[in-house]
């Protein structure tokens, strides 16, 4: 993945976007409220004032007639008064009678509704202005218009809108930056935890998550993780002690048993170096030799079980080195080639360049040798065993294929488990732990062992993920 794409998909980026959106939304909501409560409310108040004034003028007219109305309008629209106030009284013919508006606007219906007009107030005005007004028809066909110049309100509206715009921009920037910072902070703390857990998974149980000392949620998480780790470490150490002492307690009597049998055999040999002796002595010797072989079987099984348990516990990961799989395959192929030839089997090797993985050379070699042992033991009648190492994408595929009877699909998962042996193979020597050990070693190396149909025969595929620089 490229750095840009990783950044794009990263948590910091998502935090930045989320925060920017959140900030912008709250800023827009706040701005909207300010806008509505200032601009809209002002306009409504103006509308109410105009309505009251119109009603007042209509009453003046009704009570005291046209001359009084003319007088009031002249008075109110005199140059000394509030220039924002707009008045106009026209005769039924439309002729201008009084007021500071040049002529009756065509759009103005005299029905008392709130109007917004754009017009030139007098001949001197070169710019049209916005006027909020109400018009009313008086008795006798006279029409009266009262309004307010909304210029001030317009500039207020523009100022507020501008402020909202700037605020929104700043909110977006601050939000993005803050989100990014927060994301990076959270990520760095999570990253610490995940880096430490990775090392623990790799077998280093002494690792602990560092605390920042602030006692925040992350510290509490780290504390709980550390407590859990301490517990796991205790359990693992316990397991180690158990396997070690079990090993000791079982190996010591086995050593004595084996010694006794060997001593008895040596005494017999000292008595009859040429293998002669009575029939009873020959029978005794046979029993002793069988017993020795059984001790050897027990030891083999025991060693494999301990090795599997230890591989599964991941304790050996600390001893990992860089191992070139190609070199390992070549070495083991060379080791097994004469044996294969003796079994009238051709060992075909196909290597596809070096493929280095972090690993335990001895365990990998043992696992691979188990696979080759199995192939030779069960798959030799096909006349050919193929061992291959391919590199595809980020993977290295190590495979051992034979042309023997293979393993039925239903039993393939089963044989990777401990002690499972197929009925047909019970008569052959072996503990049934060879494949399980290989599977445990595969797990230890973060790789996977798969059994496939080689049509005919068995193909064991071992899938390794390669490091980017491998």
């Amino acid at each position, binding site marked *: 993945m490229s750095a840009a794409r990783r950044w794009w998909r990263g948590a910091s980026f998502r935090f930045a976007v989320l925060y920017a959106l959140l900030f912008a939304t709250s800023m827009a909501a706040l701005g909207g409220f300010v806008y509505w409560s200032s601009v809209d409310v002002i306009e409504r108040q103006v509308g109410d004032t105009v309505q009251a004034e119109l009603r007042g003028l209509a009453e003046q007219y009704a009570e005291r007639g046209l001359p009084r109305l003319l007088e009031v309008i002249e008075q109110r629209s005199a140059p000394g008064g509030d220039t924002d106030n707009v008045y106009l009284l026209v005769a039924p013919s439309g002729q201008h009678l009084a007021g500071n508006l040049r002529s009756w606007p065509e759009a103005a219906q005299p029905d008392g509704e709130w109007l917004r007009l754009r017009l030139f107030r007098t001949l001197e005005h070169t710019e049209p202005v916005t006027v909020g007004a109400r018009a009313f028809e008086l008795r006798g066909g006279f029409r009266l218009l009262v309004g307010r110049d909304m210029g001030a309100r317009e500039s207020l509206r523009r100022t507020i809108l501008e402020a909202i715009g700037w605020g929104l921009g700043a909110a977006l920037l601050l939000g993005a930056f803050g989100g990014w910072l927060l994301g990076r902070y959270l990520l760095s703390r999570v990253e610490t935890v995940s880096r430490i857990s990775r090392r623990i998974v790799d077998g280093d149980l002494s690792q602990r998550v560092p605390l920042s000392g602030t006692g925040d949620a992350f510290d509490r998480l780290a504390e709980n993780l550390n407590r859990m780790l301490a517990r796991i470490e205790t359990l693992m150490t316990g397991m180690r002690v158990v396997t*070690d002492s079990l*090993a*000791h307690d079982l*190996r*010591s009597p*086995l*050593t*004595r*048993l*084996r*010694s*006794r049998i*060997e*001593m008895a055999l*040596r005494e017999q040999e000292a008595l009859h170096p040429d293998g002669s002796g009575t029939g009873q002595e020959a029978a005794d010797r046979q029993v002793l030799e069988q017993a020795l072989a059984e*001790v050897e079987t027990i*030891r*083999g099984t025991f*060693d494999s079980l*301990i*090795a599997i348990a*230890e591989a599964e516990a991941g304790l*050996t990961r*600390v*001893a990992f080195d860089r191992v070139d799989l190609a070199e390992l395959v070549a*070495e083991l192929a*060379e*080791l*097994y080639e*004469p*044996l294969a*030839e*003796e079994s009238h089997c051709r060992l075909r090797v196909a290597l596809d360049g070096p493929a280095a993985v972090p690993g*335990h050379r*001895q*365990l990998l*070699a*043992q696992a691979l*040798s*188990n696979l080759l*042992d199995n192939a*030779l*033991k069960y798959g030799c009648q096909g006349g050919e065993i193929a061992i291959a190492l391919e590199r595809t994408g980020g993977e290295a595929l190590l495979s051992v294929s034979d042309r023997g009877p293979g393993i039925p699909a239903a039993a393939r998962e089963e044989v990777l488990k401990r002690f499972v042996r197929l009925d047909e193979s019970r008569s052959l020597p*072996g503990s049934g732990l*060879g494949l399980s050990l290989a599977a445990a070693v595969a797990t230890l190396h973060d790789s996977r062992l798969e059994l496939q149909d080689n049509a005919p025969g068995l193909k064991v595929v071992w899938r390794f993920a390669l490091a980017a620089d491998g």
Partner: protein
Amino acid sequence: MRILIVEDDAKTADYLAKGLDEAGHTVDCAADGREGLFLASGSDYDAVVLDRMLPKLDGLAVLQALRAAQIQTPVLILSAVGHVDERVKGLKAGGDDYVVKPFAFSELLARIEALSRRRTAVAAQTRLNVADLEMDLLARRVTRSGKAIDLQPREFKLLEYLLRHSGQTVTRTMLLEGVWDYHFDPQTNVIDVHVSRLRQKIDRDFGLPLIHTVRGVGYRLAEEA
């Protein structure tokens, strides 16, 4: 050879002493780590068989103390801990070989006898020979009765190992370790077929066989059977 056995299990120690004595060695025994360290640093042994888990002073601690005191007696660690990494730990601490219990006495004997040889054979040798078989390590050439024998690289290494231990019995696991550097039990007879191939080249066309099979144990390269 004078051999010191440091082993807390009395029966195993007795058995070892008896077997080594029968094989013609002089044996002393120590039942704990402190006594073992005392004996090993006091007199000159050809080899020490050292148990890993000992009362009073752990086997590895004994070994480290010996090495710190510049006592270079070859040490074979005898351990009930079979793990591969334990083996590495033992060798790192200054051990020369590592055998896991339960062991076959023949395997242990072969390894002890190989140990003492190791100390004397450290000096750089450029030629190895047994009877009329000669190996030139610099020219990487092998001749028998003056006749050149063509060997594969691995066969050369195998023969070199046998020559370096000529007259001694070497086991299959010793060969897998010494020639291939793998420390697991060969399940099948992989090693035997390598030896029999080598035998074809070394012995077939010559009157006197040099590679002998030691029944149930391994092989020996020597002039006489």
